[in-house]
């Protein structure tokens, strides 16, 4: 990386992305306070991609993929990692250029690097969502996912949202020239107390890997899955008006339960207790929740063009 503009730490890359997308007019949100598998699960993307109301948000989302845990030993794989997510509705005509601008902002000058848009259609069977787009390659490495949402929760997206997802660790390792994720500087290497990614996450990766693969109590998890499913259904079935006669459908609380079910499913999957055939059935159950939440959300104010 010959660029003099090069960031020095993981957090600097995040900060530059925040600054860049804030300058493009995005609301810079904070991570959702639940365990999710990807930034897409944040209601700021899943739910807000629905309906006609314009939307522009950017945020970091801690993401958990229990099956990817490697006890902190694999240079590239983590069970807990960060995604940077940008969602803009309707997708602006210059979204590709805006995206390339963000690469420049973190020190990847497309005049020196080889940036390519390579076909990659995105689909989330658990969210009943799909879109077309690319994975973006920089010098042969996938640095982002670029998607035009076509459907979410079984609903056509009208207008279409443009979604950008950056895998922050991988991107940062590339920009910072780190060979192992744990060696990557998290704060500035010149700080009084320099912290590497490993200083912060090596131990947690070990602990969660052990818990995910060996210890998580499957009976409890199965029960929690059922509970989340039941609670989601109960919330959705509740009358739309409250005791005082106000119309307050509860799409977001219901969707929280959907997120919960999805994550519990991921944990059960990591524990290896879900067979191939059951797998499809569980994914279908989560999708049913996502669809029901989407059905309700599109009837709410947040899905309508403000008058």
């Amino acid at each position, binding site marked *: *990386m*010959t660029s003099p503009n090069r960031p020095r730490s993981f957090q600097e890359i995040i900060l530059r992305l925040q600054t860049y997308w804030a300058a493009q007019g995005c609301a810079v949100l904070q991570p959702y306070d639940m365990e999710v598998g990807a930034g897409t699960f944040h209601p700021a993307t899943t739910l807000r991609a629905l309906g006609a109301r314009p939307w522009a948000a950017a945020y970091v989302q801690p993401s958990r993929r229990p099956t990817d845990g490697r006890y902190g030993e*694999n*240079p*590239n794989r983590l069970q807990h990692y960060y995604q940077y997510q940008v969602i803009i509705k*309707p*997708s*602006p*005509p210059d979204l*590709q250029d805006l995206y390339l601008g963000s690469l420049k902002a973190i020190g990847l000058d*497309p*005049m*020196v*690097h*080889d*940036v*390519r*848009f*390579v*076909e990659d*259609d995105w689909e989330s069977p658990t969210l009943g969502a799909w*879109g*077309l*787009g*690319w994975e973006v390659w*920089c*010098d*042969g*490495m996938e640095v982002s996912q670029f998607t*035009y949402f*076509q459907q979410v929760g079984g609903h056509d*997206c*009208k*207008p*279409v949202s*443009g979604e950008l997802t950056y895998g922050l660790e991988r991107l940062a390792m*590339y920009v910072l020239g780190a060979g192992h994720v744990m060696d990557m500087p998290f704060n500035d290497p010149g700080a009084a107390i320099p912290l590497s990614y490993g200083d912060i996450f090596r131990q947690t990766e070990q602990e969660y890997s052990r818990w995910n693969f060996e210890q998580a109590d499957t009976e409890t998890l199965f029960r929690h899955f059922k509970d989340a499913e039941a609670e989601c259904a109960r919330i959705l079935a509740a009358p739309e008006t409250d005791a005082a006669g106000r119309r307050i459908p509860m799409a977001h609380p219901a969707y929280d339960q959907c997120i919960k079910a999805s994550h519990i499913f991921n944990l059960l999957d990591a524990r290896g207790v879900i*067979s*191939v*055939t059951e797998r499809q059935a569980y994914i279908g159950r989560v999708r049913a929740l996502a669809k029901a939440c989407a059905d309700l959300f599109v009837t709410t104010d947040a899905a309508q063009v403000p008058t």
Partner: protein
Amino acid sequence: MPDLLIELFSEEIPARMQARAREDLKRLITDGLVEAGLTYASAGAFSTPRRLVLTVEGLSANSPTTREERKGPRLDAPEKALEGFLRSAGVTKDQLEARDDKKGQVWFATITHPGRPAARIVAEVLERVIRDFPWPKSMRWGAGTLRWVRPLHSILCILTDESGASVVPLTVDGVTAGDRTRGHRFMAPDAFAVTGFEDYAARLRRARVMLDPAEREAAIRQEAESLAFARGWQIVPDDGLLSEVAGLVEWPVPLMGVIEARFLDLPPEVLQTSMKEHQKFFSARNPKTGRIEGFVTVANIETPDHGETILAGNQRVLAARLSDAAFFWENDLREAKSGMAAWAEGLRAVTFHNKLGSQADRIERIAALAREIAPLVGADADQAERAARLAKLDLRSSMVGEFPELQGIMGRYYALAAGESDAVADAARDHYSPLGPSDEVPTAPVSVAVALADKLDTLTGFWAIDEKPTGSKDPFALRRAALGVIRLVIENNSRIALLDHFSRGSVLAARSALGIAAQASSTIRDIYAKLAGVPASDLLRKEIVTALLKDGKNGDKEPESFYVALAEPEIFAANLLAFLHDRLKVHLRDQGIRHDIIDAVLAQPGNDDLVLVVSRATALNAMLQTEDGKNLTQGLKRAGNILAQAEEKDGVEYSFGADPKFADTDQERALFAALDTAEPRIRQAIADEDFPAAMTAIAALRAPIDAFFEAVQVNTDHQITRRNRLNLLSRIRDAGRQLADFTRIEG
């Protein structure tokens, strides 16, 4: 004669869709223009990742003016009728002409359809084509409703003649056509105007875009080869990858890199697959070591540092990828060396089909079948069974999990690491073959045994659970499996009576299916236990299945087809053989043997031995090419027809006792003599399976048979003579029947 240039400029079009899109654009536009009355001299379509381009040369400037005559009402028709006619024809009364008609004078109108300018037609056709373009997958974007493969940014559409270029006025969903385009995304992003195709292509080239995909492919190939040559290496050819990579760049810049020494011990297939699938790199082989030691990546940009940063980045990504591969390889090798028990155990949890059980169940069946087939193909039964048990274990390896296309190839490496013999390891690699009509067929005996067992299990298994191919639907690729069996047997000259193995496979599969069903029903569980406990004596099996069938009926549902497969596997075997015969006809038709010839030999005994079927058919086919053969067929058919009529009339079968002493004519006596000579020859040739000799022997009957029919009337009033002649004909019929059912030969 103007020239037309169209460019549809969008965000990146998937590489795999570009070739088809070029063809579609050319076909749809030119068809539309011609339909509207225009003509053109030539057309060409091009694409880059961001543009789809069509040039049409020598287009007519207008569609021709056409005249149409329309007959109206009679002159004395009511005023209303005339008014209606004028309205529909779009003319006034003074433009009408009165003409004589059969029923008196009638009004005629001549309507002129004026020609239309090319620009108007182009605009209509292009808009329609854009709106209905047959992309395999298309999308909407922003707040619009138009669908395109990715967001469509601009339309360039100009007609150029001697007086210059003019933009075709056209707006599709807010995108207005113009005469401007852009160059390379990074190296020449500014817009510029063009005046025609040549100007367009030349300016694009200056703006770092190579328009023609064929030129990009050639440039990549040439540069990659010369980079490799400089190091004494060779590029591993891969046309699919070449065309994909050419669809990913507008300005190809091949760069060569070296694979780090620590990865060179990975199997070459792993290096090649990892580099191709993940990175779209070409592999470079060092002919001195035979190893893959380098790669070529194709960048889309020329940089001030001549690609140094790009290559360094690609090297790092590759190193990470290959570290993963090396990690998988080392883990897998460790498991392989320890005997692969964990993989075998793992396959118990992998469902093959929910009615046929797990992959482990399947392996059991294949092992049993491989054992039985082994001696028939010259393989050792223990080795064949061993190979069958190992062949699919690599499905659980990390490497095959990452690269499914390496299944079998990794199996061979892991079997060798486990200390297995070459024959067993090769069978692991080869047992999926042949996968298609042109795929190579294994020849090593152990490989042949396992490959056959694998396909027999697939066929009998899906037959037993009634999942047969219908029409164009063949979700389990049973036609491919059938062709695999046919090619394995024929090309290895393997003499196997397939019916026995079909029956055996049906029973094995049905038992698996019963085992699955037993998990859900206590009745079936009891029966299954009874069946599993005892070696399957036919009596017991039938008794059990009768009970099952009864159970199925009592439950008000159709009995499962695998109950029947268990009770009467012979029926399933025969049914499956018919399916195989159909595929054999298709296979042999491609080799020039007509279906009726195959039908004629399929009527012979031993038709489940495909080697026999094919050698009979080949010999018959050769004979039927000769004059003797064609006439003999007629003679045999005539003999057969006369006999059939007489037998029907008399209610007896004429089959024995022809005696030369009752012969009246020389021709009859000659036929007796010829049969006396031919019959033992035919018998002997058939016993020797020398079908060409058998055909020669029977062809020798042609002349005496012809002469016989020429001179002799079979159905005479003299009953003894008639019976004798009919019995003589039956000797002819029998001679023919030993070789084929000649009544099925057409013509």
